[in-house]
């Protein structure tokens, strides 16, 4: 079947190329047949007009993409610094659009307007210092403003204090899953190293040093981890084998996981999972996804297979750094909830000392 389809596709393509070639040839009929690559006046005329049409095409692609793809983008940020991030992003995009619209218009319009006519001489203009100064200085000013804004945002995000009441969470990466470790009542993570991974018949899943008393009350979880809303979280990030990257797009957060090194990131979640599920953009997205999943399920059922489960929104931790075969499926669910629910959930988990007994 696929062979047939691909043959048909190739044939159709060949035919369309042939047809387009024909059109070009017919449009050239009046001129004396010269296919030697030097553009005739007729060529210039047609290609110049096509250049203008291409400008329209670029604008249409832009408009179409924004109209139909804006809805697939990430919903508003669920972390405190994320609002600053989104503002800076929008400002950058506005600048990009203004520059893109104007420069593409000039480029393609000139290509159309000045398309060659036999016997006309171009203007002899070699340079214009004033003009060149203008288009050097204006981008420079805009960029300096952007750099200043960007650098302040960056240092606000990256230079966080290790204050007392911040929650410390370790993200632990390996091929191909995530684990999270909570610091327990003392809020201090016990020392850890991959050398301890084989202790206690492999039950020491993130390699905690059992001789460090800080580690005994630590809690290790898999599959999902929870965060209390409106409390600052400091992530200490480790990897046991290759590079991974802890990517939490809804919180505008990403940091690589480097074996032999502890990297850090911090944010304050502002929206619980339940609240995010009520966000109109998220509701719309979930409905769209479920419609697709329903349609796909019908096909599966027709083939006698299990249908897909309906989708419910959850925050995600993904791996963004190539790490081997199952890189595409290295995920962990993040649940943001009230401090009370969070404490209740955490107390239900086993501590390290309970696990190794």
């Amino acid at each position, binding site marked *: 079947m696929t*062979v047939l389809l691909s043959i048909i596709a190739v044939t159709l393509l060949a035919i369309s190329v042939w047809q387009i070639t024909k059109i070009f040839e017919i449009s050239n009929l009046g001129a004396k047949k010269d296919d030697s690559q030097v553009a005739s006046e007729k*060529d210039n005329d047609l290609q*110049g007009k096509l250049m203008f049409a291409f400008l329209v095409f670029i604008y249409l692609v832009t408009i179409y993409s924004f109209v139909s793809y804006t809805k697939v983008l990430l919903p508003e940020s669920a972390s405190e610094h994320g609002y600053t991030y989104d503002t800076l992003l929008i400002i*950058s*995009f506005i600048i990009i659009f203004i520059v893109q619209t104007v420069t593409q218009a000039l480029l393609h319009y000139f290509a159309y307007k000045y398309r060659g006519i036999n016997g006309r001489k171009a203007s002899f203009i070699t340079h214009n210092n004033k003009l060149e100064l203008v288009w050097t200085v204006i981008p420079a000013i805009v960029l300096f403003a952007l750099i200043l804004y960007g650098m302040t945002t960056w240092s606000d995000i990256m230079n966080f204090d290790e204050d007392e009441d911040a929650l410390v969470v370790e993200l632990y990466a*390996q091929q191909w899953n995530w684990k999270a470790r909570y610091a327990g009542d003392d809020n201090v993570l016990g020392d850890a190293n991959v050398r301890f991974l084989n202790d206690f018949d492999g039950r020491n899943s993130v390699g905690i040093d059992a001789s460090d008393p800080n580690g005994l009350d630590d809690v290790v979880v898999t599959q999902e981890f929870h965060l209390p809303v409106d409390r600052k979280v400091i992530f200490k990030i480790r990897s046991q084998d290759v590079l991974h990257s802890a990517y939490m797009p809804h919180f505008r957060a990403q940091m690589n996981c480097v*074996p*032999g*090194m502890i990297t850090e990131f911090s944010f304050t979640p502002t929206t619980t999972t339940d609240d995010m599920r009520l966000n109109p953009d998220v509701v719309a997205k979930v409905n769209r996804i479920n419609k697709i999943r329903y349609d796909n399920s019908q096909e599966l059922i027709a083939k006698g297979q299990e249908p897909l489960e309906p989708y419910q929104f959850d925050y995600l931790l993904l791996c963004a750094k190539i790490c081997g075969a199952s890189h595409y499926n290295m995920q962990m669910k993040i649940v943001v909830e009230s401090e009370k629910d969070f404490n209740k959930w955490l107390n239900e988990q086993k501590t390290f000392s309970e696990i190794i007994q």
Partner: protein
Amino acid sequence: MSAAVNNNVENHDDHHHHKETFITKWVFSQDHKMIAKQYFVTGVLVMGVIGVLMSLLFRIQLAWPEESFSVFEIFLGDRWAPDGVMNPNIYLALVTIHGTIMVFFVLTAGLSGTFSNLLIPLQIGARDMASGFLNMIAYWLFFISSVIMVASLFVEAGPAAAGWTIYPPLSALPQTQPGSGAGMTLWLVSMAFFIASSLLGSLNYIVTVLNLRTKGMTMFRLPLTIWAFFVTAIIGVISFPVLLSAALLLIMDRSFGTSFFLSDIFVQGEVLHYQGGSPVLFEHLFWFLGHPEVYIVLLPALGITSEIIATNSRKPIFGYRAMVASILAIAFLSTIVWGHHMFVTGMNPFLGSVFTFTTLLIAIPSAVKAFNYIATLWKGNLQLNPAMLFSIGLVSTFITGGLTGIILGDSALDINVHDTYFVVAHFHLVMGISALYGLFAGVYHWFPKLYGRMMNKTLGYVHFWITAIGAYGIFFPMHFIGMAGVPRRYYTNTAFPYFDDLADINVLITVFALITGLAQLIFLYNFIHSMYFGKKAEKNPWKSNTMEWTAPVEHIHGNWPGKIPEVYRWAYDYSKPGKKEDFVPQTTPIAKGEKITEH
């Protein structure tokens, strides 16, 4: 002026004492024009086809994940596509080798190798490269490198699959993925040959430009093509050795038990002995080449475009000195911005600020170049042949792709788009497509110089328009997939129901990719057909000012029969007032009472 050396005419006569055999003419040729063709055939026609084909295979997988395709079985075999379903390891290998081939083999060796070799001697008025022998060695090292890279596709455990950036520990430990065994060894050996080739080539280009310019060809009379090739060669000489050192250290870690890049690693139930190294060190070494590499790819394309836009606008290039200055500024800045690939690697946040600063500075010379191209078109008399269309297309994709750089270069904004499809869309437009357009423009423009014949115009137009629409069709929607949070190098997005509503966009992109990929067959056909059956070229078909068009159409040893012409003016006296024709070749003496153009 004093630096311009008149070539030794007697030396040229020496050549004729040797009798040319088939081997010295076609295989071990020391003639720069033949070497240029060899680079083109190996780098673009062979490696390019392999690289593009790979991208089509993984695009099919991304659009219709885990479905069975007989085309997979044909190309990947039973081992990597049992029942026609692609294996995740080979997916990563395809992505890796596609990147490696396109960046290094096609857009570095294929582009610079072809056009630096063809144009440097011809446009500066030299008999050949400074060392024809080294030039030949450079090509053959590149050839060996290509053979090894292609051979690596056939090893038992599969080719390298750690991404074209081959970050350790993934690339260092065969336990972490099958491609990091013999496949990675061959990758590293191939790249070592490649770097050696690139260094010999670059040194030759630099020496030739500095020493072998004909009488009157001062540095500020050089066409912008030569400036671009010259500066590209300098960047290459500065940065490629650093990649070589990274590759050598990685070989040590892989085979001799050192710990340059590895520390505290636990794989398959075993604690490895590595202690004290850091993968971040590798990232620094890699990107110290990796970022300048972007400009090694792009600057020659921009140089080619400058020449073609000026010639076909029948107008001097706008702001010649500003163009030279921006090439130099880009070259300088390119060596101090590598850290913007590493904002979220755990590097000190202060360094992030520094690299944001230097990175966004690079936008200024880039903007100057774009504005100067547009100003060159203004009030011109545009000859819209296929080469010119590709050049204008380059300016368009250079702007579209370059602008998103102000998001990725800004450390704060990079956090959430780092390693997503947003990056893929950005760099494919700004360096991939732009450099390819430069390559195509160059081929259409200098085909008469390469083969003494003209390519077919109509096929050229069709090739351009399908490619132009396809390039935007592929990469414009891709930005949105990235902004939606999809990381790159995912074998499929189906593991995340959250990405289900992006499946349509992926199908759309793949359809555009297939059409655009197949459209390149038009170019291949046009190229090969015109080689043998194209209309015979005139000496100066584009009415261009540069020196290569004063040389005879037939290729001869030493380029010019008799004395090398002298140069009296810059390369851009197009439509000069008071002249009958709308071009004045560089070799035309200044007429009585004519004012030398100030530029």
